[in-house]
């Protein structure tokens, strides 16, 4: 019960804090629409208008990843600047439990990106919103968002040690978009990149979302998304403990 209270309080608290950050809001609100617009025009320009819903779903997921990434990187950095990181590290619950709701709240905010992209595509570009398996879509979307949040938790744990979290966040945005095949099939990428794609929750998540919207197998990719999400949670609980220990022993926790 105590753990649930920590999760709920952290979730609500982070949503409130994100709501006051104009940087985060612009990233969440504007960026997906911008990337979706570029993707729509690129597909229209290439004469592949039949793939607009495909592009729309991918652009939406790009937004989910961006908000997760900047939110996860930012939450440790912001707490460091505000002097509350030490309080989180010293509190009785584990750091994983403290930052889990923060990371999930970041990804949850990213769901807006998906909604905004789909609405933008429908209103401005006339992209049809006919979903082949609407109920599976409603299941795949939150499952993927939560899995991304848990992946963000692993990243957040590294930011406990790495002071230049924002630079790392900037760097990881495009590679994950590319390796996950959010807007194009990963079959066009070099073969050596496949194993990288396979271990990324968004790679399976976008397949589950896309197949539920456009038709195709959903349960397999959805299962992999959930599995990798749980694996991320397990990894983050280990890395948080390890990196917290390193940061304490090196006395670098509060260095800005």
């Amino acid at each position, binding site marked *: 019960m105590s753990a649930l209270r920590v999760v709920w309080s952290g979730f609500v608290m982070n949503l409130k804090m994100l709501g006051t950050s*104009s*940087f985060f809001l*612009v*990233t969440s609100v*504007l*960026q997906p629409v*911008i*990337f979706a*617009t*570029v*993707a729509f*025009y*690129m*597909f*229209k*320009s*290439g*004469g*592949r208008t039949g*793939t607009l819903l495909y*592009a729309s779903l991918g652009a939406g997921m790009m937004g989910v990843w961006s908000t997760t990434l900047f939110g996860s990187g930012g939450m440790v950095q912001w707490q460091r600047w505000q002097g509350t990181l030490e309080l989180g590290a010293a509190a009785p619950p584990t750091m994983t439990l403290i930052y889990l709701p923060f990371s999930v709240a970041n990804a949850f905010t990213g769901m807006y990106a998906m909604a905004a992209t789909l609405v933008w595509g429908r209103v401005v570009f006339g992209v049809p919103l006919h979903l082949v398996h609407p109920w599976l879509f409603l299941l795949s979307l939150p499952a993927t968002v939560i899995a991304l949040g848990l992946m963000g938790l692993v990243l957040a744990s590294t930011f406990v040690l790495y002071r*230049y979290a*924002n*630079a*790392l966040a*900037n*760097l990881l*945005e*495009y*590679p994950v*978009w*590319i390796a996950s095949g959010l*807007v*194009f*099939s990963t079959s*066009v*990428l070099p073969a050596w990149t496949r194993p990288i794609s396979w271990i990324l929750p968004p790679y399976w998540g976008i397949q589950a979302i896309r197949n539920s919207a456009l038709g195709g197998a959903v349960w397999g990719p959805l299962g992999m998304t959930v599995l990798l999400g749980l694996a991320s949670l397990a990894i983050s609980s280990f890395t948080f403990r390890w990196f917290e220990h390193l940061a304490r022993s090196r006395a670098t926790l509060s260095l800005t």
Partner: protein
Amino acid sequence: MTSLRIFFIGGAISFRALFGWLTPAIYIPTMILTPIFQIIFFAYIGRAAGGRSDEFYVIGNALQYAAVPCLFAMASTIADERFWQTLGPILISPARRLPLFLGRALPVIVNGLLTCAVSLLVGGLLLGVHFPGRVWVTLVPVLLAATFSCTGLGLITAAIGLRVRETAVLSNVFIGLLLVFCGANVPLDDLPGAMSSISRVLPLTHAIEAARDVAAGASLGSVDSLLGREVLIGVVYSALGFGLIRFLEQQSRRLATLERV
């Protein structure tokens, strides 16, 4: 002589002090690796969408990414001074404003040029796009024009930094708009007429077009009108930015908003 010293030495010191990305741990991921990934990302979308050649996306995105260092660095020349509470002493100094602020733009232009060139080179190599030596020589003034006009836009965001706190947000908005409008990934002919018209008055549009022409074998003389328009846009944006700085400086004294962080 004092103005020259403020322009060159003051500009260099300001850049070193305020451009927080100069640490290799930030500079390399942000200024070197990210634009390369951006190029790869859009080139692969282009392949999937049946769009243009890889060269189209390499040039478009390498030049578009110049907006990142130019806008962020220029904005930080005022926003960060304000954050560190050093803007007041600068503004009460007797230094002439023109060398003071334009001097801060010079290292930004050089840094933008470097970012563009490295992105073009590495992005091109990774995607198998080769630019002959002659093309590189011709590209230098084109890249300079692109970074100059972007820095002009950056001067406007810097001026707005005298009034608002979130210049990073503003810079991100401008960078996103440039990505859509400046023809980096979508040919201007494929954009709706109104959008295409807006593109013509934005930085980068003409420089990207000129760079693509140069890469296709055109001489510098044959793209001089495009270059001229890019430089003109840069001059207009710089003048607007400088005028806005003077105006908002006076306003900030009158309304006592200078120290409001």
